[in-house]
């Protein structure tokens, strides 16, 4: 009879032991996950780079439009070119996710073609190479470059293209 009671007690302990173990032997924890999504970047053309009208010296010249913001400036390395007409920096609007930062890459060089020998345009420079798009998600950038005029450059209108690449930083 004592033995039987003992078995009942042991059995009861085992059952209680199982219940307690179930309550304490597992733990559940919350983890957090997150992801931030960007808007695809776009770039909108606003202005050509325009070197205006140039009367160059026969020896050729190098004409530079500066990329700095504000009133654009133009200069000649020889000082012998006559610069007339309007000139302008290249200008684009970069649009993407608000408060993100983009990076700008511009062609290393290009050529503009017309009635005479092609002329090289190089030294492209951007006023901001990593513009912050701000709360609106849009910001303008301005681009300058250097025009290399050949000797005895044939008069006329010369045009060409260059590329601007934007990417998220």
């Amino acid at each position, binding site marked *: 009879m004592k033995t039987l009671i003992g078995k009942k007690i042991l059995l009861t302990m085992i059952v209680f032991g199982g219940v307690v173990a179930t309550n304490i032997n597992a733990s559940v*924890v919350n983890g957090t996950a997150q992801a931030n*999504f960007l808007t695809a970047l776009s770039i909108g053309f606003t202005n050509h780079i325009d070197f205006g009208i140039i009367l160059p010296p026969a020896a050729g010249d190098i004409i530079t439009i500066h990329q700095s913001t504000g009133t654009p400036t133009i200069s000649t390395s020889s000082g012998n070119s006559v610069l007339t007409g309007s000139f302008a920096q290249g200008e684009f609007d970069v649009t993407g996710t608000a408060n993100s930062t983009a990076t700008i890459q511009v062609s290393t060089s290009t050529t503009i073609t017309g009635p005479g020998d092609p002329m090289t345009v190089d030294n492209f420079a951007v006023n901001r190479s990593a513009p912050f798009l701000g709360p609106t998600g849009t910001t303008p950038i301005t681009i300058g470059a250097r025009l290399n005029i050949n000797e005895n450059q044939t008069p006329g209108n010369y045009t060409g293209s260059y590329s601007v690449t934007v990417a998220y930083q």
Partner: protein
Amino acid sequence: MIEFNQEKLMFTKKTIIATIVSFSATALMGSQVANATTETGTAQAVIQTAIAVTQSTILDFATILPDAAGDNVTLTSLSAISSSSGNSAFFGTPTAGSFSVNGDANSVVTLQFSTGNTLTGAGDAIPLNNFTTPTLTPTTDGSGNVAFDVGATIAINANQTPGLYTGNYTVTVAYQ
């Protein structure tokens, strides 16, 4: 004579019955003496340390420029991120989730992840699933500690609205 015989007969029956009872009692007493014994029962209990789990690092897919057609982006438990379409771009520092467990020393625990989780934000909810970790049965060290990293996959919708999306998932850690 007849009555005497009856009484004698009745006496005889009582004697027989009493004798039988007496023998039975004797037999029972003899049985009790012969079966007396002592057994030792064993009782035991194993007291386990309650498992404590804490999140050390959130599961962060960082910044994604998603494929406009939608994409499944997977972040491994080693913090490597990839796109199933190959057309999503990644920025920042994607980081696997990380958890620390404390329990009994040198014990195997099991890990179980929730299902049906989503990240919510400005646009359509993004399913978060396919949790991965190096092993679903890590072993605690001599101090009862073990850490594990967690990766997962998000199913980005087509034309997902930009912005920050967040959500929760649960990890259940139990003794094996």
